[in-house]
């Protein structure tokens, strides 16, 4: 494989050495070359009219003046009006006379050139300073403080100090509110009364303190199903109701909770929820009872709160009881004949048992030998006799 690649490579090399080949057509494109039409020719910019080509001005009359100018003109004194008219007549005449006009334009041209000469226009390209590798001379961006005063004239406190002062003012304002206005809120307080028996639905709205929020229109409804039973539903119907509400039911607290944010306003959402409850109750009464289906509570994971048993609480009575028991135990402990100690048990065994004590064993064998010797000695004696 590698050698094959090499062959190919070699022939390709020879082809390349032959020199640039003229490729008559773009080999990999089948379409005929088509060209985009060129942009329409840009018409040359209109030449600026020469001074003699300019149209002549109309004869001056005060009626030609614009509205504001006219009002100004009306306010002038009569002598001044005459003077103004004369001046304007003269200007128009001068403009309408071709020679004078040319002279004036020439004058203008001349003065412009003069300015050019006096203040030659030069474009000096300002090179940006080259920052070194370490950027030592670079301006420190972070050194700029937002409200640092550019220059300080010793005639006022700094703007930071002003800001600080503003904070103080704000704090004082709220302090004033707290001291003077808030106590008045108690006049608005109403005593809490339990919601009446008829109010079994509880709604929750959310406010975001004036900010607009997508969930502002959401309404949450909660109701306890026990409240429904005698009045609206029988017990069996309540079970049906629970089967209908499905996972919205919390068996620990016996609360059904549902929410709506379908509509743009709260009132609509609330209306919708109430309608739902109504239809559920109606369905529970009239519709299929679902008696053959057990209530499904799989959605709910009961939370086990581990608590110490009540019997463990250390009341004064229990303390006494415990102390009495402890004393009783100590008394029994004293009365007890022998407290067994593992060490003494082993030590005793080591002292007594020959299996554990080689010294005892040796003694025993020694005694046995003595007896044996005595016996054999007697026997020998006997035999001797």
């Amino acid at each position: 494989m590698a050698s094959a690649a090499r062959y190919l490579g070699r022939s390709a090399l020879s082809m390349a050495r032959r020199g640039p080949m003229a490729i008559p057509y773009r080999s990999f494109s089948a379409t005929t070359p088509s060209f985009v039409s060129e942009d329409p020719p840009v018409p040359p910019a209109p030449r600026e009219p020469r001074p003699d080509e300019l149209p002549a001005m109309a004869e001056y009359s005060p009626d030609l003046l614009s509205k504001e100018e006219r009002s100004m003109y009306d306010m002038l004194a009569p002598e001044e009006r005459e003077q103004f008219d004369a001046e304007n007549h003269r200007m128009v005449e001068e403009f309408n006379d071709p020679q004078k006009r040319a002279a004036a334009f020439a004058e203008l041209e001349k003065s412009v050139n003069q300015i050019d000469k006096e203040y030659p226009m030069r474009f000096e390209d300002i090179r940006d300073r080259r920052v070194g590798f370490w950027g030592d001379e670079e301006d420190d961006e972070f050194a700029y403080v937002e409200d640092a005063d550019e220059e300080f004239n010793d005639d006022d406190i700094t703007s930071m100090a002003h800001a600080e002062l503003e904070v103080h003012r704000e704090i004082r304002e709220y302090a004033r509110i707290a001291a003077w206005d808030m106590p008045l809120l108690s006049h608005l307080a109403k005593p809490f009364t339990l919601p009446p028996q008829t109010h079994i639905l509880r709604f929750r709205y959310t406010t975001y303190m004036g900010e607009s929020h997508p969930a502002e229109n959401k309404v949450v409804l909660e109701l306890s199903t026990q409240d429904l039973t005698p009045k609206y539903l029988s017990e069996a119907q309540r079970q049906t109701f629970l089967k209908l509400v499905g996972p919205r039911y919390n068996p620990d607290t016996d609360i059904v909770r549902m929410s709506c944010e379908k509509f743009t306003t709260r009132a609509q959402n609330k209306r919708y929820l109430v309608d739902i409850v109504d239809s559920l109750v109606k369905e529970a009464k009239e519709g299929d009872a679902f008696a053959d289906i057990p209530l499904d509570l799989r959605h709910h994971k009961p939370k086990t709160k581990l608590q110490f048993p009540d019997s463990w609480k250390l009341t004064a009575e229990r303390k006494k009881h415990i102390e009495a028991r402890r004393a009783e135990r100590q008394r029994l402990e004293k009365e007890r004949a022998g407290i067994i100690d593992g060490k003494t048990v082993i030590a005793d065994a080591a002292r007594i048992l020959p299996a554990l004590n080689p010294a005892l064993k040796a003694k025993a064998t020694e005694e046995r030998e003595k007896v044996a010797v005595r016996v054999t000695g007697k026997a020998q004696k006997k035999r001797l006799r």
Partner: protein
Amino acid sequence: MPPRLNLFNARTAVPVFRQPSVKVSRPSIATINSARSTRHGLKTGLTSSTRMQQRWSSSTSGGDNSERPKAPAEDSLPHVSEEAAEISKIMDKKCDGTPASPELEQGTPISEILQRDKEAQKHMPKVMQDQIKSSTGTRSFSTFTRRSQAELHGQGKSFDEQTAAVMASMISQVNQQAEELHDGIKFDPVETLPKTENFRTRYDSLLEQFTKLLMTDGKLSRAQKDMAFILDHLRTASPPQPNPKRPLLPGPPAPQLPLNPVLYLTLIVDSVAPLIKIRQQKGIAGGGASVQIPVPLALRQRRRTAIKWIIDASDKRRDSKFAQRVANELVSVAEGRSGVWDRREQQHKLGIAGRSNLAGARR
């Protein structure tokens, strides 16, 4: 059962045994070995319960200084020059105060000189003058850098009665204050628990070391299971038949060992623990040849080596279970059949042979 000699207790309590003529059953290296192991091994033997340990506080009754425990740095022998003076006193019977030889002059205490020289007495330091005047023979201050007896005995006898009384009153006052301070304490303070009562160090140090060395791949729980098996095996297997050529360290007699498996294990490991390791060092002899240098090992290092050897040796056994192999190896070590003993002897032989290289190593 004959009373066994406890070296550790004997050294502290009975100064008579501190003579160099104490005989130990195992000579040379084993002496050091046993002295080390007594600290944890022997004290805990079966005999310990019958023997009363003499405590330091019990020796205060005699008031005899010879009963006083010695601090480790305190030499029992007198200074060379003082000893020589004693000898010369005895030999020459010349107590007129003239020194017998020039080198003794260096060792003469200043007090003796002052006793002789009435003229010098006038110019002696005020402290010494006071001392002579009060003539109680003791000072109210101590120049000892060592811990004085006062700390060992609570209130030293060497203090004069007045100081002692003052001290006692001060101590009682402080105690009273402390009592008043800790009014809220309901129960008596618990005495300090032994080290093994802490749950982090609940096992014996050797047990812990052995367990960790049994561990592979960080499976500590498995190693602990193995360790439990080994200890149970030591507890249930028949007691070892000790080999007189390769005895275990002195401890309770062999039949009693299974009743205390941890001690059994400790004795086995400590008995085969080598004292040294051999370090191969190049460049001492020159020419690139390496030289074997014996290096002494600390207790933990010695045990580690021994445990490693035992586990290595157990690899050659045929039992299917790892813990069983190690347990069998331990028993065979106790009975002197194991190859670990040879390994230890080999190591010590090499160490003895390499003693001469130590000089080169120090250079």
